[in-house]
């Protein structure tokens, strides 16, 4: 039996194509995935992300606990409202999950983890928390709506006039409460916008208000093409428990500067990564997908995510290849038995509506 979010009836009513994702029945698209993608790049779109799990970490030891549990350092979050992206590692230095942690005040953090791994994550955190003065509170009472796109903030201000001040002043990667709504200027699309956590019973009204303000409902299909254009990893695809974050383009999220110990630190410090995550742009006609073989002069690799990029009109991918492979190199990718030509390109491929890889498209 698949789980459903509080907005499920709204998606059904809107004629969404529903698919299984991480144990949930979620909208894939509401008609056209590509049009939804363009709406986010050009104006504003919204995603029901209520399947993701919000977990509060509360107590006198909350900071010390998270500094030990997460590979990025929550001590960087000095002011309430600041947010941080981090991996949670196992002892082998593999990725248990990636998440965003919001600092809400002394002894109060809220983390948001992936839907498909939520139960595993909470179990993992609970084991690490044993004997510490922290409690974990799963906020399954909350709904989450991501409003993304160049017009997302103004649309949100229009939909919820009480939110206007927040909408105008909130800095990127920060969050603020508006009554019991937590509004964060974060997202998974490479565009400006908000992720709003609000009481579940209000989600249907909020969704309708955003729709009236001109925000287009978007499904998981567009969410995937948007995040891949933005060069953002997807857990389970670009990294997992057997992948080092250092070989998944996530070295920037691992804080080895602070002297604290964290789960996985010893394994990472002892490792010498030989692979790296690189962007690919397909030169030949076709579409890159995950798990396609890559041949480079420096050795073989594998695509981890691939798609057709609606913004570029080309196929793009992330691929784990020998670390010596560099932007500008030509590689071959096996697509349905044929070896096609791709160019290694830096990612993000697209940011704020603009291609960043024009030089690699010619």
């Amino acid at each position: 039996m698949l789980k459903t979010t509080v907005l499920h009836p709204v998606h059904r009513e809107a004629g969404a194509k529903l698919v299984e994702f991480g144990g949930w029945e979620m909208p894939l698209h509401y008609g056209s995935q590509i049009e939804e993608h363009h709406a986010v790049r050009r104006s504003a779109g919204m995603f029901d992300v209520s399947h993701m799990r919000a977990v509060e970490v509360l107590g006198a030891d909350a900071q010390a606990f998270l500094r030990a549990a997460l590979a990025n350092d929550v001590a960087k979050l000095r002011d309430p409202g600041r947010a941080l992206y981090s991996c949670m590692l196992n002892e082998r230095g593999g990725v248990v999950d990636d998440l965003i942690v919001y600092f809400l005040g002394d002894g109060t953090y809220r983390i948001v983890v992936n839907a498909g791994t939520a139960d595993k994550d909470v179990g993992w955190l609970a084991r690490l928390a044993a004997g510490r003065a922290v409690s974990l509170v799963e906020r399954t009472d909350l709904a989450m709506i991501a409003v993304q796109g160049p017009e997302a903030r103004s649309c949100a201000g229009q939909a919820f006039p009480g939110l206007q001040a927040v909408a105008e002043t909130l800095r990127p990667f920060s969050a603020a409460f508006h009554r019991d709504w937590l509004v964060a200027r974060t997202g998974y699309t490479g565009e400006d916008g908000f992720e709003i956590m609000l009481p579940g019973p209000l989600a249907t009204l909020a969704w309708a208000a955003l729709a009236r303000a001109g925000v287009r409902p978007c499904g998981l299909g567009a969410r995937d093409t948007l995040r891949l254009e933005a060069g953002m990893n997807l857990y389970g695809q670009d990294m997992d428990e057997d992948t080092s974050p250092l070989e998944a383009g996530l070295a920037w999220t691992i804080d080895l500067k602070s002297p604290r110990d964290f789960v996985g630190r010893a394994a990472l410090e002892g490792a010498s990564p030989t692979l790296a995550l690189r962007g690919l742009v397909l030169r030949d006609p076709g579409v890159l997908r995950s798990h396609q073989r890559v041949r480079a002069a420096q050795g073989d690799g594998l695509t981890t995510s691939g798609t057709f990029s609606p913004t570029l009109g080309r196929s793009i991918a992330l691929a784990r290849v020998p670390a010596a492979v560099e932007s500008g190199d030509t590689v071959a990718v096996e697509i349905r038995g044929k070896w096609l030509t791709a160019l290694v390109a830096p990612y993000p491929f697209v940011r704020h509506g603009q291609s960043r890889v024009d030089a690699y498209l010619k």
Partner: protein
Amino acid sequence: MIKTPQELKYAKTHEWVRQEADGTAVVGITDFAQEALGDIVFLELPEVGRKVKAGEACAVVESVKAASDIYAPLSGEIVAANSDLADALERVNQDAYAAWLFKVKPSNAAAELGGLLDAAGYAAAADAAK
């Protein structure tokens, strides 16, 4: 609501076939297929002159979701491929029965046409595949 025009024949593999007065057969993918695939982003068509056998994979449709082989519903020679579609792939999603992919000059039509489904038979098969 999935459309299955009465006047067409259908393959179980989700191609439609329209018999033309000149004896050729026009082939495309069904409304059910385009709906299941989602937005189509790439098409690889067979070369004109290629000889195909019924059931042989001879074209590829890639959508935002996945790649799918398109099978020749009838044996024969490919006499035309709709290369105009390459710049307007959304037409396959908008009207799958207008956006034809290729034409076959059948070599064994009498025997093979009977193996195709009529609209009601295909609608039932598609419904079961949901």
